């Protein structure tokens, strides 16, 4: 997918959508899933000390708007074998909002 095809995201709306992620994730610390602070630009499976699935460690992707959009749409299709057993965020606008929030969220926010 081309970057230009992505919907513009609203970080404020994304903050509300991020509440859905908080069974397993936090911005500043690792939980069932890895921390999200500094996610954009990070290579997948590389937060020190976090125990990733072999599939995520092997995925070799770098998280950016495009790769996150694909992953969030259908995590198990994007990275078969991921432990993020979640059907995904179907709405492209919601994904864009979520990515905008992740890109803008302060790292000291718990």
């Amino acid at each position: 997918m081309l970057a230009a095809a992505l919907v513009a995201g609203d970080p404020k709306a994304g903050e509300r959508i991020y509440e859905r992620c908080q069974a397993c994730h936090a911005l500043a610390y690792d939980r069932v899933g890895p921390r999200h602070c500094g996610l954009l630009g990070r290579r997948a499976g590389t937060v020190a000390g976090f125990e990733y699935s072999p599939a995520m460690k092997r995925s070799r992707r770098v998280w950016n708007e495009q790769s996150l959009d694909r992953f969030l749409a259908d995590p198990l299709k994007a990275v078969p074998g991921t432990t993020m057993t979640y059907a995904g965020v179907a709405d492209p606008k919601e994904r864009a909002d979520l990515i905008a929030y992740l890109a803008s969220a302060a790292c000291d926010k718990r």
Partner: protein
Amino acid sequence: MSFLAFASPLAARRAFLGRSGLLLSGSAIALLAGRDVLAAKSGGSKASDAGILNTALAAELEAVAAYQVGAESGLLQKPVLALALQFQGHHKEHAELLAKTVQKLGGVPAAAKSRYAFPVEGLKSQADVLRFAAGLERGAVSAYLGAVPLFANRELAKAAASILGDEAMHWAILRNALGENPVPEAFVS
């Protein structure tokens, strides 16, 4: 019926299991009632279903630890503390059943971490603890909602949905305790 109406967690569990029999069938009943062999022999993609359950199990174990932090914080008034411990008990029951089912499906159940990172420095009042717990429960509802369609075994999906319902009740009660609209929307996402 709310779990709050029961005199003890044991009574609640008995009633839950009894009532579940009215609503759930097949391997979901086997799972919830502990009839492990029947549950293990049910169809579907065992590895995949075990993986879904294991992710849920890891989150349930973290929730148990989070409620323990809240209970030991010294910030909760007696009735609220009782409520927190009751909810923690539900999460323990969820975790026990999920672990048994993962095992019967041929997986290795996720274990509790020796240490969890919680934002304890931000917990300075009862409201802080309730808000923290409400956030976890809200996330759990979404996590189960996102997991239910993935199960190959529809009876396991039904069982997961029953946990979702319980955790949605926790979330609503916690919101109510915070003075917020307990059920702000017609749908959860």
